[in-house]
């Protein structure tokens, strides 16, 4: 078993789709809060397989999309320092800041390197002791433990030329805010990889408080369809609960070793989310005991005033109350080659997915 093809089996997909059609009666709006799900749903054409009364909506699940422009401006300001090497995941390269982007700064000779892992950034720090290496920490609970591990390794190795700029965020406050802000949904497709770390208990407040189900889903077509099926059953029986479809990797208790790393290095703080505003206790700041590695604390540089494009409706798209097609910039002033909003930049952004997998008039 290689855990990919088995979950893309055509016959099984068809039978699962039939099963959903057979059992689903009530109209339903399901929100996926993981950008990976957004991409997979479009890539595998899931909406075209579902009955018309089941609607899938994309939520704020792409770390790049929800991140503040100020974070990019911050990174750009670092990159303009002569002795700084920026290390980042490829995702951030094209994201527009207030007046520039990392891609543009790179073209203007800033030393910006794309890494696959924070471990690669540590290697760069080892090889360039006279430079300051700033790693851009983005992502949810899935990615944050790796960043924590990186910071601890830097400390153990005495790599005091290594810094992290953290924009890490945690998912539950956003899921709560979506419901509180009145976005009409009937259930959540729970983020599979976030939950691999956190476990399922952190979602229990959703059925308890909001009477809404959460099914933690994998990313292959069969996973997603089975999760939708589980949500349909909950909805038809009016018995919302937290269930794990992605049981081959998600344990109810999560991954305690990863959680320990995260708790050791980070602490919760209020954080700004595109579309949702400031959410209490939703961001991860580096704790004082690791302040030596905190780029926010160790650099004192001026950052330009943040400017957002007013016509961009990324915020509403992220909240699931507007479709990318509702935006007057979409496909015209804002395309994957020349993005205005963050949702168009990220591969998993709702706008990029919509653009890439858009329907033509002929279809």
């Amino acid at each position, binding site marked *: 078993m290689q855990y990919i093809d088995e*979950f893309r089996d055509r016959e099984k997909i068809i039978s699962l789709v039939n099963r959903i059609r057979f059992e689903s009666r009530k109209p339903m709006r399901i929100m996926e809060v993981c950008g990976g799900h957004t991409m997979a749903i479009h890539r595998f054409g899931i909406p075209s397989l579902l009955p018309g009364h089941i609607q899938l909506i994309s939520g704020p699940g792409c770390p790049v999309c929800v991140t503040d422009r100020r974070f990019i401006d911050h990174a750009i300001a670092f990159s303009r320092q002569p002795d700084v090497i920026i290390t980042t995941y490829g995702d951030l390269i094209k994201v527009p800041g207030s007046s520039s982007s990392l891609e543009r700064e790179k073209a203007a000779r800033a030393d910006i390197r794309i890494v696959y892992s924070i471990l690669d950034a540590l290697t760069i720090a080892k090889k360039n002791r006279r430079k300051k290496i700033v790693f851009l920490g983005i992502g949810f609970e899935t990615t944050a433990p790796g960043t924590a591990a990186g910071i601890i390794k830097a400390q153990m190795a005495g790599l005091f030329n290594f810094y992290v700029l953290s924009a890490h965020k945690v998912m539950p406050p956003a899921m709560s805010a979506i419901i509180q802000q009145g976005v009409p949904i009937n259930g959540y497709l729970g983020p599979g990889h976030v939950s691999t770390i956190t476990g399922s208990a952190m979602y229990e407040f959703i059925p308890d408080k909001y009477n809404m189900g959460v099914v933690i889903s994998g990313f292959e077509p069969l996973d997603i369809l089975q999760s939708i099926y589980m949500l349909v059953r909950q909805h038809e029986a009016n018995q919302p609960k937290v269930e794990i479809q992605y049981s081959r990797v998600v344990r109810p208790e999560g991954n305690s070793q990863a959680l320990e790393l995260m708790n050791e290095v980070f602490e919760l703080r209020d954080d700004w989310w595109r579309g949702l505003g400031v959410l209490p206790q939703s961001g991860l700041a580096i704790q004082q005991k690791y302040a030596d590695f905190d780029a926010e604390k160790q650099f004192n540089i001026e950052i330009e005033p943040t400017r957002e494009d007013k016509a961009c409706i990324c915020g509403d798209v992220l909240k699931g109350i507007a479709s990318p097609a509702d935006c007057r910039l979409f496909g015209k002033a804002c395309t994957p080659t020349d993005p205005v909003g963050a949702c168009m930049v990220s591969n998993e952004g709702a706008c990029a997915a919509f653009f890439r997998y858009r329907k033509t008039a002929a279809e």
Partner: protein
Amino acid sequence: MCLSVPAKILSIEGEMAQCSVGGAIVEASLQMVTAEGIEPGDYVLLHTGFALQKISEEEAHVSLNLFNEFEDFNKRLDEEEKADRQYFG
């Protein structure tokens, strides 16, 4: 999200492991999954150079078996439909 892929452990040296993703070899840290007792041949979920969890073959089979049941159910429906059609000519 989090682009994570299933990878097969080929060899382990200390905290690091060589893993195979469809024949491409990638080095990854096992530090978050040491409690799972990972061995060569096991599958793990990889993300940004770290194994996040051991993949449970048992649980994967549970899911796949469930899909098989759906398939059987469908076949039964198909047959019933066929039988109906024959009956009503």
